[in-house]
């Protein structure tokens, strides 16, 4: 299982964060339940209008970061139609042996009408076909994955919108942080000084107001 900076950039999900672990779990559970050899999460990049492999399970790590155009294959079709797609490789006449996948599911991760990405499952087992029920399960997992990402993005917007404090407050906070890191003796001394300052400020505040 791997993930890339694409996750951080496009999904707003930091590596090793609780959200990343939930997404990994969803891919792992999905792949196990439908008996897939590989599972992956592709992120939608609205600027480039394509998909990028962000997480894989059971698959080659080299896929991470690879771009997939929206006008190709089942992943592109799932994104374009906003529908779960279940398919198999193409063949000419009598089916030939191939090293390619035998069956694929591609489920869009949606929040409302917004496309977040696509969740995929791939099987290389000879004659394997994913059922409509497998597709429904993947569709539901993709919905949950979409909600996880959406919640993270909302939180990030709230944190970003919160007031950061005045420059003086920021400066005090930084100084206190440095002192705290320098050891218990410095911290105790600072605490005593702060108590004295607090007493002076409190006793003079009434006079200023008067």
């Amino acid at each position, binding site marked *: 299982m791997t993930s890339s900076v694409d996750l951080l950039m496009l999904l707003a999900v930091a590596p090793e964060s609780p959200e990343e672990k939930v997404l990994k779990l969803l891919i792992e559970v999905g792949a196990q339940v439908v008996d897939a050899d590989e599972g992956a999460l592709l992120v939608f990049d609205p600027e480039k*209008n394509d998909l990028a492999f962000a997480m894989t399970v059971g698959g080659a790590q080299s896929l991470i970061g690879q771009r997939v*155009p*929206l*006008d*190709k*294959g*089942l992943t*592109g*079709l799932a*994104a*374009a*139609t*906003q*529908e*779960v*797609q*279940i*398919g*198999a*490789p*193409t*063949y*000419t*006449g009598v089916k030939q042996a191939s090293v390619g996948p035998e069956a694929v599911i591609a*489920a869009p991760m949606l929040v409302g*009408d917004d*496309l977040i990405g696509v969740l995929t499952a791939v099987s290389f087992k000879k004659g394997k*076909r*994913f*059922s*409509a029920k497998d*597709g*429904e399960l993947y*569709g*539901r997992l993709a*919905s949950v994955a979409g909600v996880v990402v959406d919640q993270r993005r909302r939180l990030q917007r709230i944190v970003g919108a919160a007031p950061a404090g005045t420059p003086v407050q920021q400066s005090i906070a930084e100084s206190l942080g440095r002192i705290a890191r320098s050891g218990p003796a410095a911290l105790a001394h600072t605490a005593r000084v702060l108590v004295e300052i607090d007493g002076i400020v409190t006793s003079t505040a009434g006079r200023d107001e008067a």
Partner: protein
Amino acid sequence: MLAMLTSALAERIADLQKGDLQTVEVAVLDSGIDATHPDLAGKVSKAFAAYVVGGTAVVEPKGVPENHDVFGHGTAVASIICGIAKNARLIDYRVLGSDNTGAGEAVLSSLRDAIDAGHRVINMSLAVKADFAPRLWPLCEKAYRRGQVIVAARRNMPLADQGFPAELTSVISVDRAKFASAVSLKYTPDSVIEFVGHGDDVVVAAPGGQHTTKTGTSFATPAVSGMVALLLGAFPSLRPFDVKSVLRHWADTIEAEVIP
């Protein structure tokens, strides 16, 4: 008219397939069709592509026979229709492309074009966002009143809705199941989606002269469109209400074995 409906009710699909049938134009609103595929040789008579330019959808004619399929979805759908109804002539409307932002507008414009052109059957193996339903509804009503039959797919995994236009009563809505035969049908009167067709592990044409296997409501829908094309080929004056009645009768009489 009543005599014609009675005759249609008595017909079996297999008998219709052997009989003399009028050509029926079936508009396929999808990802485009590979008209060069051997399974579809001579079947696609016109092709269009819908684009969204500056918020407005434009429906533009394309060459025939050429490969206009960007995903392989429309070619699969087309091969199912032609596999059941030899009398079907397809009108290819490409509404799904790489730009996933304009699909709704492209679908609306293409549907309007297909209705105005008078195509008797319109296959929609897709669902647009519910926001488009208020604009879809009058178009589907217009088609119904003009005697045109729209066959539309239920969403594969409905979350908020079953899919539009499938939820509209003026269309024939289709869900999927696994049947022993492609010419299978079940009627589900208690459901928003009225009919169930064969849509699991369906062997279909794929662009470049190839074949593949597909599963989903998208592939049950053209099976029903194919049956409708057969029916209208034999009984051209049937109205959408009559067509639904015959389909219901067929669903009751066909030995449709659902495979779990």
